[in-house]
């Protein structure tokens, strides 16, 4: 009886020491959790999550203050990635924040623009060019599609358009969802 207890205690001690040593010796140096969360977020800076941008939302998630399902632009994929990272159950997107939409791009109707610069001030990523009283334009490559410029425009000259695929960005379809065969006859 006593020998058994001693043996088990010794075993537990040794294993504990080994594990403790391993956790120090083989510690994985990772980015701080906020950075990792921020990397997953789509960086649209749209504020639909009710935070002032992606980083503040990331900080709030890291602090455990909010759910991971408040990012409509990132949609299901982002929620899944966050769930994997934080080891929690994925949830459906919070409808209060918005719905998942295809990728959008802001386009300024240059004929109607009056050059008020309000949209420039609204753009979180400085993707609108122009000066006071001069026509503005969107740098298409840098627009995140956050829609924050639409509201401030006094003449409603900004439209959100769906980004069209081109042969460069085109992707092969998922064979498990798409019928790759031509049906003849019937």
């Amino acid at each position: 009886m006593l020998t058994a207890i001693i043996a088990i205690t010794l075993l537990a001690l040794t294993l504990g020491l080994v594990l403790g040593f391993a956790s120090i010796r083989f510690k994985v140096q990772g980015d701080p959790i906020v950075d990792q969360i921020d990397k997953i977020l789509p960086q649209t800076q749209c504020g639909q999550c009710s935070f002032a941008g992606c980083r503040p939302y990331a900080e709030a998630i890291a602090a455990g203050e909010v759910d991971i399902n408040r990012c409509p632009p990132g949609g299901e994929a982002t929620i899944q990635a966050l769930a994997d990272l934080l080891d929690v159950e994925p949830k459906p997107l919070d409808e209060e924040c918005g719905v998942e939409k295809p990728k959008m791009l802001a386009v300024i109707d240059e004929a109607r623009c009056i050059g008020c610069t309000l949209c420039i001030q609204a753009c979180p990523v400085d993707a609108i060019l122009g000066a006071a009283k001069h026509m503005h334009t969107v740098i298409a490559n840098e627009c995140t599609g956050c829609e924050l410029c639409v509201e401030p425009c006094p003449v409603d000259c900004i439209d959100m358009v769906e980004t069209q695929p081109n042969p460069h960005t085109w992707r092969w379809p998922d064979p498990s969802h798409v019928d790759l065969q031509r049906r003849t006859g019937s």
Partner: protein
Amino acid sequence: MSAPLGDFPGGLKLPGHKKRSTQGPIRKTPISKQLVLPLQQHIGAAAGPIVEVGDKVLKGQRIARAEGHVSVCLHAPSSGVITAIGDHAIPHPSGLSAPCITIETDGEDRWIDRQQIKDFRQHSAHELRQIIRDAGIVGLGGAGFPSFIKLNPGVHHSVETLLINGAECEPYISCDDMLMRERADGILDGVEIMLFALRASRCILAIEDNKPEAIAAMRYALSSRSHLSQTEIVVVPTRYPTGGEKQLIQVVTKKQVPTNKLPIDIGIVCHNPGTAYAVGRAILHGEPLISRVVTVTGTDVTHAGNFETLFGTPIKDLLAFCETRRQPDEPFIQGGPMMGYSLAGDDLPITKTANCILVGVDDVAPPAQPLPCIRCGDCADVCPASLLPQQLYWYSRAKDFDQTRDYNLFDCIECGCCDYVCPSKIPLVSYFRFAKTEIMNQERERHKSDLARQRHESRLERLEREAQEKEERQRQRKAALAATKAAKAKEEDSINTAEAADSVTEEKA
């Protein structure tokens, strides 16, 4: 033959079906009424148009210039009038459109002045490369990489071997075969220029042993050029995919191109015979690349053969010229039956990379619902890159893209051998292409979101700086105001004291 040949793992013996298109000589396709020229027919940046709608152009006249380094020019394949510059359907698996220049031909086919170079050795390699770039020459084997870049050894490399890839291992295709049979001299002209530009010491012309006529023609042409003593013709066994660049290098030199490196890193540069021929035409005859030999073949083609076709020729014109039993809207294949892709509409132009138009195949993959993978490993046995397709399939289907990268997805050359042998008829290559484009898209998105984050952060910084500056200015203004106030107060004070003093003195007085 000198050194014994190497070997690559896997591969398949496929029925060639090449006889159908090698019965007659190369014929010229008649000039179409309308030629549609996509601005991007090569890897890299699209060319920029330098003509406008309504302009009259001559055959061989430049109509778009290279934009950036990895890009080449585009030329009018025949004389006529520019009728449109804008989006038009292009031969791409997506079926999408891209910017194109449309020319209404006038039927005169009048050439622009051609600058011929009689002795290219009088020119520097750099000048020759520039001419090749201006002539719009890209790899004609199918990938369409700008050739002038692959003719530049650069300062860090020395090129030992120029490898001309005449293997043409895919079934049905015979355009290189016919070119070597009929224009061996022209190919050797190009080889000489390429050797000169690369400062390469030797050239190997590899041809699969199912093309005895091409081998004989090339040998004969070579025998009359005593100064090409360092060029040899190597006959390689017919096995798919010997014509893959990496596989051919392994067969001919027994070397492997290390992962993430290029053949030039091991002193080898690989070109297609068609490209060599085009280089010869460009330098010695001043002709830019405006046409290519296209194989039109397949079970449903009445007059199969090889056709020298102007770029921009609508595929429907070419098919009408060859007569087919094709139903309207029936898909056909551009490229070979293993690596080509199916196109649906026929209002699509022939481009620089169109080596074959295939209508109907013999051993067609029947419509079949794939069964589950039974892990038989046949796919791994035939993989020329020694990958494990069954694992790649598993992870691609589960969209576990990190794992697919771990299993070296990007070393897959999409040859289709695994797909061909799969007893469960799983469309493996489709899964791999799907996973590859998904990963590239993720990468693009990540890049874009990084950029957005940076811009957002610098914006926040800027706003903060501006706020600070504003505050600073306000503070300074306040300070200034306070100072002036103080000064004023002091002044008033002194006035007061003075006044007081005065009063005192007055009082005293």
